[in-house]
């Protein structure tokens, strides 16, 4: 080693941030050493099963245990066994853990059974007979608004939000053109690889220990306190290795965890509940379906003047997270554009379907899908290029969002659009495609054969979206997340946070941020398991907040820890060995060292919940997609040929993981756009298997080219903003635009299945 390099190494350990280090848990997962909940062997465990409603709405008349069945060894629990409140505590505390005398959706849990032998438990479930007197059910948004039956309050509306800015009348009178449209998107299932699964045990001190596949240990913790009337200290919740979440393990683990805990409470035995895929798809949360009606005013030159956006989301049978999903959807409804005059009215309605919940994007994909489709309609009406219309109106620093938020920094809207236009060679590619499509049409007319007799058309579409990172409004202030760091006895630093690794790389990212500040390699840092018995509440792993908010706190803890140790050593610390050495000396001399940092609102951020005005998010991330498709006019099948995307995420702490989020989110968006559709039969999910609820396979995945744009945010660690959800917002509208480019027909509902596209082409006379 040359002296010079040695000297550099002394002052700065090799940097971690911005480098794609090995995943902390990667080897365990690849070798199969990682133990998921169902892999855990617990002596004496019982297997729990859930008896559910098979009708969407009704009064429970009678529950009988088949007298012919051998009930020996079967534990049975219903709502009367709940020691505390019969509620799954969340935001709106309206969902019972077990139905009492009415059911409000199919698959609503009514009773629980458990047995040592899973086969017997299943047999016991089938031996419970539930008689329900059916009541008229509300199954669609339209039925809810028409009050076909009243299922919530006096109007079936859980929540209404109005966001207004400027003068809508004026905006429309300034416009040369007013364009209207209605757009729809349906349910989507998160489809994590590992189904929901929880394991509960009573502890010796009369408390509960609950483990499982989950995103938010403290959500489960608080829900259990309420259900079991236990003080916080008597409940412990631990996240086990989790095979994916996508929002689907944000709130539902409180339900299934509560069920397992209730059976454990009653039996005194450990109880495991592991859903199979059918139960998971049929009973757990989905993305909210949405219907958006838009009216937009625009001037001839493409300047947007007014937007009137009416949004209705289907919340399902209980409010659960609907108010906040609705709020994020509404705040993002105007997209990353300058609208001098806006009115957004959003309603979340009640239906007798299983409650919809958190899913990557949290309402923003639905509204931006509608808005982006509408932007294309505006461009078409003006005869203007889709990129040009967007570029002209895209937000810049100093612009104001519908809630009145002034965008002060890190605004990458135009950059991501420019990058995508450049990389896709937008104008040239569009022209080339149009020429080829026209040539194919001419050839077909003259009965010449091209493309092997297939009537193929290509199309290229674009989209531009943004996504606020962190909780909405004063959410982060209310969460007041706390992160901690301390030292193990051998001198290794240990990060203590409640945020979970669900496949996205959280632990690796935390290790990198801590390592960077400590000036040690990432693998030197240890990350404590998310266990409410040993980590502080650093908030849920949702809302693209984990890196930006919690990562920031971890970096602060690490910096403070290094400073403390250097102060103690009275010299700079040089790398991992030296760190461990100093740390051990510190522990011997002073005892434990624990550093904590709590979230503080960055200066200049204000939000008013009552008026829905102010800084909805600290910062937004931005993304643009250019998607090329090939449509077969005979079968109406759409194949995605290629995706170009550029995403401004502030800073990629781990470029490979960040790109992985973008690729995965893009594919999930393509599935939503083209394939994924729940089919219902009398209020029950009909296609609850992987053979009939279909998502893209690797053979369906197009090449996805990702460019990460880094426009730093001053309050994110190393400039980082959110990346988890953003990629979900962009693909669907670009697909619809590409199909419109290919066929001349703009569909307004996703998924664009061949059946649906065929109908649309027919209606358009093609």
């Amino acid at each position: 080693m040359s002296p010079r390099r040695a000297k550099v190494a002394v002052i700065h350990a090799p940097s971690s941030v911005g480098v794609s280090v090995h995943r902390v848990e990667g080897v365990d997962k690849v070798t199969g050493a990682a133990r998921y909940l169902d892999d855990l062997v617990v002596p004496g465990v019982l297997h729990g099963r859930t008896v559910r409603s098979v009708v969407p709405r009704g009064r429970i008349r009678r529950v009988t245990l088949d007298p012919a069945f051998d009930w020996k060894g079967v534990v049975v629990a219903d709502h009367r066994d709940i020691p505390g409140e019969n509620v799954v505590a969340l935001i709106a505390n309206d969902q019972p853990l077990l139905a009492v005398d009415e059911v409000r959706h199919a698959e609503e849990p009514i009773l629980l059974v458990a047995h040592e032998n899973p086969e017997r438990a299943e047999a016991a479930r089938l031996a419970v007979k539930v008689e329900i007197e059916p009541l008229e059910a509300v199954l669609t948004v339209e039925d809810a608004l028409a009050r076909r039956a009243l299922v919530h309050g006096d109007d079936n509306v859980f929540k209404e939000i109005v966001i207004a800015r400027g003068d809508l009348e004026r905006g429309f009178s300034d416009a040369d053109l007013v364009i209207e449209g209605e757009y729809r998107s349906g349910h989507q299932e998160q489809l994590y690889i590992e189904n929901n699964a929880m394991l509960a045990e009573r502890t010796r001190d009369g408390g509960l220990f609950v483990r499982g596949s989950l995103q938010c240990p403290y959500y489960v913790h608080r829900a259990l306190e309420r259900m079991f009337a236990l003080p916080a200290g008597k409940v412990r919740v631990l996240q086990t290795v989790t095979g994916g979440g996508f929002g689907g393990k944000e709130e539902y683990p409180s339900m299934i965890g509560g069920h397992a805990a209730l059976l454990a409470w009653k039996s005194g035995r450990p109880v495991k509940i592991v859903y199979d895929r059918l139960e998971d798809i049929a009973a757990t949360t989905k993305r909210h379906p949405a219907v958006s009606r838009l009216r937009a005013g625009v001037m001839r030159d493409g300047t947007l003047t007014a937007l009137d956006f009416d949004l209705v989301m289907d919340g399902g049978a209980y409010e659960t997270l609907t108010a906040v999903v609705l709020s994020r959807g509404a705040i993002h409804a105007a997209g990353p554009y300058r609208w001098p005059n806006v009115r957004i009215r959003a309603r979340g309605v009640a239906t007798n379907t299983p409650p919809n919940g958190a899913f990557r994007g949290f309402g923003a994909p639905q509204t931006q899908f509608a808005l982006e489709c509408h932007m294309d309609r505006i461009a078409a009406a003006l005869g203007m290029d889709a990129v040009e219309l967007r570029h002209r109106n895209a937000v810049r620093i100093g612009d104001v969002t519908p809630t009145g938020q002034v965008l002060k920094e890190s605004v990458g809207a135009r950059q991501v659009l420019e990058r995508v236009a450049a990389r896709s060679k937008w104008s040239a590619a569009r022209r080339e495609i149009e020429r080829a499509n026209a040539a194919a049409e001419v050839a077909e007319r003259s009965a010449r054969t091209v493309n092997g007799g297939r009537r193929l058309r290509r199309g290229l579409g674009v989209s531009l979206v943004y996504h606020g990172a962190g909780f909405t409004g004063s959410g982060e202030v209310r969460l007041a997340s706390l992160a901690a760091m301390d030292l193990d006895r051998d001198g290794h630093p240990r990060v203590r946070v409640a945020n979970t690794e669900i496949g996205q790389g959280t632990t690796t990212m935390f290790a990198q941020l801590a390592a960077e500040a400590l000036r040690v390699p990432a693998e030197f840092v240890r990350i404590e398991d998310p266990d409410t018995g040993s980590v502080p509440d650093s908030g849920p792993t949702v809302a693209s907040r984990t890196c930006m908010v919690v990562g920031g706190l971890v970096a602060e803890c690490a910096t403070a820890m290094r400073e403390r140790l250097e102060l103690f050593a009275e010299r700079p610390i040089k790398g991992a060995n030296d760190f461990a050495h100093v740390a051990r000396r510190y522990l011997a001399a002073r005892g434990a060292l624990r550093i904590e940092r709590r979230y503080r609102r960055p200066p200049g951020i204000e939000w008013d919940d009552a008026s829905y005005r102010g800084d909805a998010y600290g910062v937004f991330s931005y993304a643009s997609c250019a998607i090329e498709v090939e449509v077969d006019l005979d079968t109406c099948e759409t194949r995605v040929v290629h995706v170009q995307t550029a995403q401004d995420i502030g800073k990629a702490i781990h470029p490979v993981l960040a790109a992985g989020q973008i690729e995965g989110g893009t594919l999930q968006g393509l599935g939503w756009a083209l394939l994924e559709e729940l089919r219902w039969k009398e209020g029950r999910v009909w296609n609850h298997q992987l053979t009939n609820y279909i998502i893209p396979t690797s053979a369906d995945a197009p090449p996805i080219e990702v460019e990460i744009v880094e426009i730093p945010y001053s309050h994110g660690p190393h400039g980082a903003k959110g990346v988890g959800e953003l990629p979900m917002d962009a693909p669907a509208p670009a697909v619809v635009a590409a199909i419109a480019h290919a066929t001349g027909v703009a569909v307004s509902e996703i998924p664009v299945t061949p059946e649906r596209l065929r109908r649309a082409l027919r209606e358009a006379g093609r």
Partner: protein
Amino acid sequence: MLTLPAFEWLRPANLDDALAHLANHAAESLVVAGGTDAVPNLKHRLHEPRWIVHLGRLDELRFVRESEGALSIGPLVTLSAIARHEGIRRDFPSLARAASLVASPQIRNMGTLGGNLCLDTRCTYYNQTYFWRDALGFCLKKDGVRCHVVPQGRRCVAAHSSDVSPVLISLDASVDISNARGSRTVPVDEFFVGDGVHNNVLVPGELVTRVTIPAASRGLRAAYQKLRPRAAIDFPMLSVAFAARVSDGGCEHARLVVSALGAKPRRIGGLDALVKGRPLDDALGEALAEAAYRQCRPLTNVAYDDAYRHEMVPVFVRRAVREAGGIA
């Protein structure tokens, strides 16, 4: 979790042992080759056998023999092996292609020709767990008395979903069927019956022991086309197999088989008169497409729009004719 029911596992060492067991216990036994169809169905409690008779050790049923007179294939040959077999690819490309379009690489490595021929029929009301079938009301095919697809019907119309069978019919293949007392040979065209409950002629105690494609089928212009929602995994929503003998004087004879619509593959009738002496071109494709459209009636047995599937029949027939005719 979806679990397997309890059963006893038998692995006979040779065909005679297998047939001997089945001679006495066929009703309580389920034969399993690759298990890719049988295992999911067991988990759904569509079968609850006392014995599983696994054919895996019957090496005598694992062969591909090319001879002057015919090509014969043992039922245990996997779909991947068929898809890559050089002789099959050369002489019967539509068969290799159909095999290559089944499910996914992993499933093709396990799934066998015999299993594909004897694949259970599929229906949205049937391929469900016991609990769901119970809640929906059991149907004719298992445990019930009514059909939900055709409520007045007296027969199950669950969809025949094998990719390979329509091609075998188009190539005039036959199957050898054996039981403990002997064997018989039936054309694949007569192997299937129009009853979704049990859609083939096998009677309890019988196994498929060989599939034979006559040498005469070697020179056929043949094609296979499959409609599926994704680029992998999915069963056909519609499948079309076509084969024609073409000489200088045009088509002499043709077979067109459309499947995945009803309980058995449908051979489109009246073809010989239609094709005789005509070149294999788009005009002929159009005529065949029209005939197929008129003769096929998709049902709501699978989760895809029946009107759409009907409209796709002529599209896929045209494509098959083009593929067979080598029309670019």
